[in-house]
C-alpha cells in the first residue's frame, strides 16, 4: 500500500511535470525555430506570423489528441461495432438491431427508460423550483438549501445503500428496521418488498435520483429567480395578483430558458442512469434500463460487443436532439459577440 501511495505521488509529479514540460518546451522550441527577437524587422514580422499560425495548435493539440482517442474514435467505432457480431469480426447487417427490438429485456428497458424520462426530470425541476421559491422567503433559506443540495455530492452507489436501508423489508410481525415499512406498519398497513414489486419498483428507484438531483435544479433555478427584475413582481402585486398568479404568470415565463436547461441536463443524466439500477435490483423484477443492459451485455458470457454497441447507439440516438439544440444555442451566443 505504501508503494501504491508512493507510485501515485510519483505519477502525479511525472504527469503534471510532463504537461508543464510539454507546453513550456514546445513554446520555447517555436521561439527558437522562428525567432522574433534579434532579427531584422521584416523577418521578425514574418516569423511572428508563422508563430501565430503554429502556436494555437500547440495549445489545443494535447486536448485534441485525447478527445479523439477517448470520445471521437469510440463513437465511430461503436457505430461500426453495432453492425458486427459479438466478437466484432463479421458483418451481420442489422441483425443486432433486429435482436434488440425483439428482445424482452430490451423492450422492458426502453419502456422503463421512457418512464424514467417522463418522471425524473419533471419531478426534479418541479420540486427544485418550489424549494427555490420557498427558501428565498425565509431567513434560514441558505441552510435549508445547503441541506437539500447535499445529496448531489453523494455517489449513486452510496445513495443506493442509503435508500435500500429505507426500503428494507422484514417479515410481517417482526420489527421493521426500514423506515418506509416501519411507517406503513405503524399506520396498520402491510410491509412490502418495495424493490421487487414489478412496475412500481421503477418509482422506488427513481426516488433516489430525484433525491440527488433536486438540489441541482434548485440551485440553478434559484439563481435564475434572483435575476428576475424586481419591478415586474412589484407591478404584479400592485395589479392585485395573488402569489400563485405571480409564480405561474410572472416568474415561470421569465426563467423558461433556465428551466429548459435544467430539464435537458437531467434528461441526459437519466438516459445514462446505471449505478442505481445495478446496485438496487440489477435489472431484476422488470426494472432494467438501457445503460445497465448495455453493461450487462458488455461482459455477459465473455461479452457481446455487437449487442452492447447497439444498445449504446440507441442511447446516443436519444441524446442527439439535445446535442443539436445545445450546439445551436452556443452558436447563437458566439455569433452575437
Amino acid at each position, binding site marked *: 500500500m505504501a508503494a501504491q501511495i508512493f507510485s501515485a505521488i510519483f*505519477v502525479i509529479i511525472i504527469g503534471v511535470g510532463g504537461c*508543464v514540460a510539454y507546453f513550456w518546451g514546445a*513554446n520555447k522550441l517555436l*521561439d527558437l525555430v522562428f525567432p522574433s527577437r534579434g532579427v531584422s524587422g521584416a523577418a521578425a514580422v514574418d516569423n511572428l506570423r508563422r508563430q501565430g499560425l503554429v502556436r*494555437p*495548435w500547440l*495549445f489545443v493539440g*494535447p486536448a485534441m489528441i*485525447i478527445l479523439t482517442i*477517448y*470520445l*471521437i*474514435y*469510440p463513437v465511430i467505432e461503436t457505430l461500426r*461495432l453495432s453492425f458486427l457480431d459479438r466478437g466484432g469480426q463479421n458483418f451481420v447487417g442489422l441483425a443486432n438491431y433486429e435482436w434488440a427490438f425483439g428482445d424482452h429485456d430490451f423492450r422492458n428497458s426502453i419502456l422503463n427508460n421512457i418512464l424514467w424520462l417522463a418522471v425524473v426530470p419533471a419531478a426534479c425541476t418541479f420540486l427544485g423550483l418550489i*424549494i427555490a421559491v*420557498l427558501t428565498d*422567503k425565509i431567513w*434560514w*433559506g441558505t441552510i*435549508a438549501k445547503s*441541506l*437539500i443540495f*447535499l*445529496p*448531489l*455530492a*453523494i*455517489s449513486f*452507489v*452510496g445513495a*443506493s445503500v442509503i435508500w*435500500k436501508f*429505507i426500503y428494507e423489508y422484514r417479515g410481517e410481525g417482526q*420489527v421493521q*428496521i426500514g423506515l418506509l415499512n*416501519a411507517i406503513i406498519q405503524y399506520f396498520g398497513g402491510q410491509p412490502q418488498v418495495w424493490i421487487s414489486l414489478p412496475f412500481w419498483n421503477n418509482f422506488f428507484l427513481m426516488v433516489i435520483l430525484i433525491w440527488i438531483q433536486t438540489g441541482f435544479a434548485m*440551485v*440553478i433555478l434559484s*439563481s*435564475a429567480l434572483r435575476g428576475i427584475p424586481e419591478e415586474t*413582481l*412589484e407591478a404584479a402585486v400592485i395589479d392585485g395578483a395573488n*402569489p400563485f398568479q405571480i409564480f405561474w404568470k410572472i416568474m415561470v415565463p421569465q426563467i423558461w430558458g*433556465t428551466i*429548459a*436547461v435544467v430539464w435537458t441536463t437531467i434528461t441526459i443524466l437519466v438516459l445514462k442512469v*446505471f*449505478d442505481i439500477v445495478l*446496485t438496487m435490483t440489477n435489472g431484476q423484477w422488470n426494472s432494467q434500463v438501457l445503460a445497465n443492459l*448495455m*453493461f450487462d451485455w*458488455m461482459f455477459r458470457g465473455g461479452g457481446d460487443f455487437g449487442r452492447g454497441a447497439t444498445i449504446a447507439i440507441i442511447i*446516443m440516438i436519444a*441524446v442527439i436532439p439535445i*446535442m443539436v439544440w445545445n*450546439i445551436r*444555442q*452556443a*452558436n447563437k451566443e458566439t455569433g452575437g459577440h
Partner: protein
Amino acid sequence: MAASTGKSFVGRFGVHIAVLVFVVIWTIPTLGILVSSLRDKDQIIASGWWNSFASSSQTEAGRLPAASAQTQKDGKYVIEGNVFGDGAKRAISAFGTKAAAPTQYKAGTAADLGDGVTLQVNADGSFVLASPKAFEGDRGQRVYFASSAPPKFTTANYDAVLFSEGIGRSFMNSLTVTIPATIIPILIAAFAAYALAWMRFPGRALLIAVIIGLLVVPLQMSLIPLLKLYNGVGTFFGVPSKTYLGIWLAHTGFGLPFAIYLLRSYIAGLPREIMESARIDGASDFEIFVKIVLPLSFPVLASFAIFQFLWVWNDLLVAMVFLGTAPDQIVLTAKLNALLGSRGGNWEILTTSAFITIIVPLIVFFSLQRYFVRGLLAGSVKGG
C-alpha cells in the same frame, strides 16, 4: 421577491413548515445510515435507527440448566441461576416457555408450568424453577424472554470495515484514482480553453462546436471501443490492460469536454484590455497565459477541480470497466457494490461502508460549496 411574500401570519408560517418538511425528507435518509453506522450491530436489527436513543427491546431464547443443577430446598427441587450467563446488563420485561408466546408472563411473577412446576424470572435475569418432583433429563427447560438493552453506540463497525472488510484499502485506491484524474485534465484543458477563447486559427468555431457536442455524448458510447483498445494495447505490449494509468487517462478524456467548455467561457470573459496591453508590452501568448490568465482563472479552475473530484470519486461505471476487482485496485464505489452482494443483510457493514464512501465528497462539498455552486451555474446555464 419580498413583494410576493404572503403577508398573513398563516402564509409565512406555512412557508417555514413547507421548507422544514422538505429539509427533513432530504436529510433523514443520510442521517439514518450515519446513526446506524455508530450503533451496536445487534441493536441495528433489533430496532429501527430512529429508536436508537431509546432502549431497544428484543426477544431472546435461552435454556435453563439441566436436572443435574437442581438442589433441594424446603421439600422442593429447585434450579436457580441467571438467564444472562454472560452477565450482560439487560432488563427483562416478560418471559415465556413457548416459542409461540415468548412474552406470556410478566417479569417477577411466578408462572405455573403445570404439575406444580413454577418458574419465576425476575427483571435482572435471575430465575427460580421449582418442582415438587425431582427434575429429570439432561436437557434444561426452554425459556424465552423479552429484554431491553440501553442504547449502545460504538465505533467498532468502523474498525471492522476499515481493517477487515477492505474498505480502508479501497479508500486508498479511490484516492489513487481521483487525485491524478483531477489534476491532469486541468492543465490540458486550460491551455486549450485559452487558445479557443483568445487565439485566432482556422477551424476554431468547428472545434468549439465539436466540444459542445461531445459534452453530452453518453459515456456508454466509449466503453466498448476503449475496452477493446486497452485489451489490444495490453496484449501487444504484454502489460496488464487494467491499470491506474489507463483509468487516469480515461477520466481525463471523459472530463475534458466539460473542462474546456467551462474554462473557455470563463477565460473568454476576461477583460480584453488586460490581454492587449500585455501584448503591446511584447508578451507572447504563453507568457500571457501563464502570468495573467492562469492566476485570474483561479475560481473557475477550483470549480472544475471540485466537479472532477466528485465525479471521479463517485464514479462506478468507469472503475468497473477499466480497473480490476482485486484488493489492490478496487475503488470504494465498486467495493460498496460488491459488499451489497456479499453482505446484503449486514447493515452494520453496509451503513458504515456507505458512510465512509460519502464522507470525503461531503467534506469537499461543505468546505468548497461556493466554488461548486459557481461552477454549476457557469456550466449549465448555457443558452439560457
